């Protein structure tokens, strides 16, 4: 599998809702969502890591749920609300998960971080008080090759324990 997927289908005009804005784009419906976000919309915070849904670097939120954009045909995202890492903060105010990653120092090279943060946001949206085991299970589809797993768990626990997040941390 390559970072860029070829398609033979004709281009069709569609609109993609990303980070609260509609983007009219002409594209092949079976192209990956990752490819469209990065190469058409310039949203490069979403990363290519493997192209087969194994590493989680490409995760984005689709209607609040983390999905692997490298194996999601863009056609499946049309008509739904997509949030990429660039759209998570409210202006200058970081999402609590973003802030916790900074406070804990939960990254090294940082390449996995956008996918990690969005996977964590997705987890906390459905379970605002996850146990350590639940965090590990929910995050197991995301790889940090620098090996920063323990601090990532710590950052998520920090958010889960904060009172402000008691009623859910959805973006």
């Amino acid at each position: 599998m390559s970072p860029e997927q070829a398609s033979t289908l004709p281009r069709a005009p569609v609109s993609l809702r990303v980070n609260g804005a509609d983007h009219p784009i002409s594209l092949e419906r079976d192209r990956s969502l990752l490819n469209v976000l990065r190469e058409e919309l310039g949203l490069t915070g979403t990363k290519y890591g493997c192209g087969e849904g194994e590493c989680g670097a490409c995760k984005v939120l689709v209607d609040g749920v983390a999905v692997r954009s490298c194996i999601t045909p863009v056609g499946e995202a049309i008509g739904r609300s997509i949030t990429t890492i660039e759209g998570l903060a409210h202006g200058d105010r970081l999402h609590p998960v973003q802030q916790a990653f900074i406070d804990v120092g939960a990254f090294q090279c940082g390449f996995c971080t956008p996918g990690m943060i969005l996977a964590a946001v997705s987890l906390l949206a459905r379970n605002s008080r996850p146990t350590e085991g639940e965090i590990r299970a929910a995050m197991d589809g995301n790889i940090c090759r620098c090996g920063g797993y323990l601090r990532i768990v710590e950052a998520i626990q920090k958010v889960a324990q904060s009172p402000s997040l008691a009623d859910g941390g959805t973006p």
Partner: protein
Amino acid sequence: MSRLPSAHPFDLLPPAERNYFERFGNGLVVVLPAQRPGPSEWGRGGPPHGGAWIHLGGDGKARAFTGKVEVGQGTRTALSLLVAEELHLPLSSVELTMGDTDVCPWDMGTFGSRSMPDAAQHLRLTGAATRVFLLEIAAAQLEASPGDIELLDGQARVKGAAGSRSIGYGELVKDLQRIELVPPSTEPTPPSQWTRAGHPAQDLGSREVVTGTRQYTSDLHPPGLLYGKVLFPPAHGSKLLGVDLSRARALPGVTAVQEEDFVGVAAPDPATAQAAMKALRAEWQTTAQPSEKEIVDYLRRHPTEGEDSWDVLHYETGNVADAFAASPVSLQATYTTAYIAHVPLETHAVLASWNGDRLTVALGSQTPFRARHAIAEALGLPESSVRVMVPPTGAGFGGKHADELAVGAARLARASGHPVRIVYSREEEFTQAYFRPMSVVDIRSAADKDGRLTAWEFHNVNGGSAAARLPYRVAHQKIDNQPTDSPLPQGPYRALAATANNFARESHLDELAARVHADPVEYRLRHLADDRLAAVLRAVVQRAQWVPRTSPVGPTGRPDGKGQGIAVGLEKGGRVATFAEVHVGPDRRLEILRMVTGIECGAIVHPSNLQNQVAGGAVMALGGALFEAIHFENGRILNPKLSEYPVPRFHDVPPIDVVLLDRPDLPSQGAGETPLIAVAPALANAIYDATGRRLRSLPLVPDGTVP
């Protein structure tokens, strides 16, 4: 000062001819001159280096420059902290430029854990000298003597005089265009007096990381960008006989290039680039290659001289043959480690752009100056016409030496007249990168009637010599390594040979301790010749609450299936000890209950980052210890995907207790590699304790169960 083209690389000019002030504005520049002895002189006075420089500008900021790069190991913040320390500046007033060949000092590359012992030392010296010049300038303006001036958070003022005037650094230097060399007498601030370095600090650039705005090489997208792809052989050991580019060139907007061994295409969009690759008609000659099942014999039967004489270690002391003959106890075993892959999460990436006759290459690389040289040589350019920059890079681990990729992108950019970006697919990353070498280590040891080690014979085939020397007292030793004609490309890797040699030695020492009914910790302490390493071992076993082994491990291990293991190591100037506790149940599944790992690497510069390096290094080492292995047959990689080559995930990681021993009285050493080397033997030793089974090959449990 002569006016030169603003693009001439600084390292190729004498300090006085560099246009620091044209580029960065007025100010004070202090330069630590380069030392570049020839390779034959390496090892005398340390490796060659390109020095360092600092520009203190009218805006009050210190711009520091080093040829080292940041690929996720956290040196940007650590090195910046040291500059802030010497100049008494807030961290936010330091801007560190790394690995940009136009404006940074020459550097041989970021490998071998040299950023702390070399770059940090050079920046400390340069910072300290800058401070001394600044004190003189401030003294003149404040009409005091330099000894009466104090520097605080970017302001200079007369000491002790309440309400005295203070002047900002920027104000002091804004009218200067002054270049000074670091005086030989310069002394950096001793770590015991540090107020910024050695204390908690937030990593620079954190906000960009968590908001997704940090631009890695693979994210760069200039106007007119073409997507490049390289034609790779179908198997290692293949030779290109010929290629027909015509069908690819017929596609819209496609450039196809064949120059020397390079064949590649560039196209306006990824799908067309893919189609152009499919349209290439290449003819390959393949030759039979050795496969995994015969690899140990193959390596033993294919010795070579080695590429460099310093690759080869031959150490001998005492009389090994006589000592074996005279010793009542002897033991012999062979330990192997598999070829494994780096798997940086960002694959190899490059962007090449021409501007007239000048080429700029953004490259995820640990060796930008070597890449500049390779590009210039391949394309017939003067080195001054090439600029290599290293944007933030999604990790390296020793695997990002990307000279050939950079040359290929430059060729495509030259032929097409457009900027060209190449990003490896994950499969290309697995098949085209080089691997951590396989090691085959033969050890023979002997002990006297009291169990004391008397003789040690150690021979590494193919893997290299790092950390092969003994940290233990043994009178008779023979230690060497044998380079071979490896059938797979192999190269640098985080803690490369040290992992293999430490696994072999620390496993074997455990076997010998068991043979003479000694406790593994006591046995090590009895023989350790290095007090610093002994201190780390003691700290770790205390934290881990090691239970001394009072009875031998039975043939089936412990009734409760629990075992504990210990291992130590000394590498790259750092000392490490790792403890592991495991459980192996009736289903033979291995569970790691907990680990404790301790390190001492001199004065700690950035404690939080060191903690990250130690814990992260231990996690990376878990993969190679437990399950990572490249499978290959006849020159082909059989598992070139993350779904087929597992790396550690959340569920693989036990609780890891990190013990940091700070030694402000000792020089800071690198800590990116050393934390890996004791993990595999600690696990193998713990598995032995739990089950009575001695595992001598990495990976230990490819399917998760103890055989």
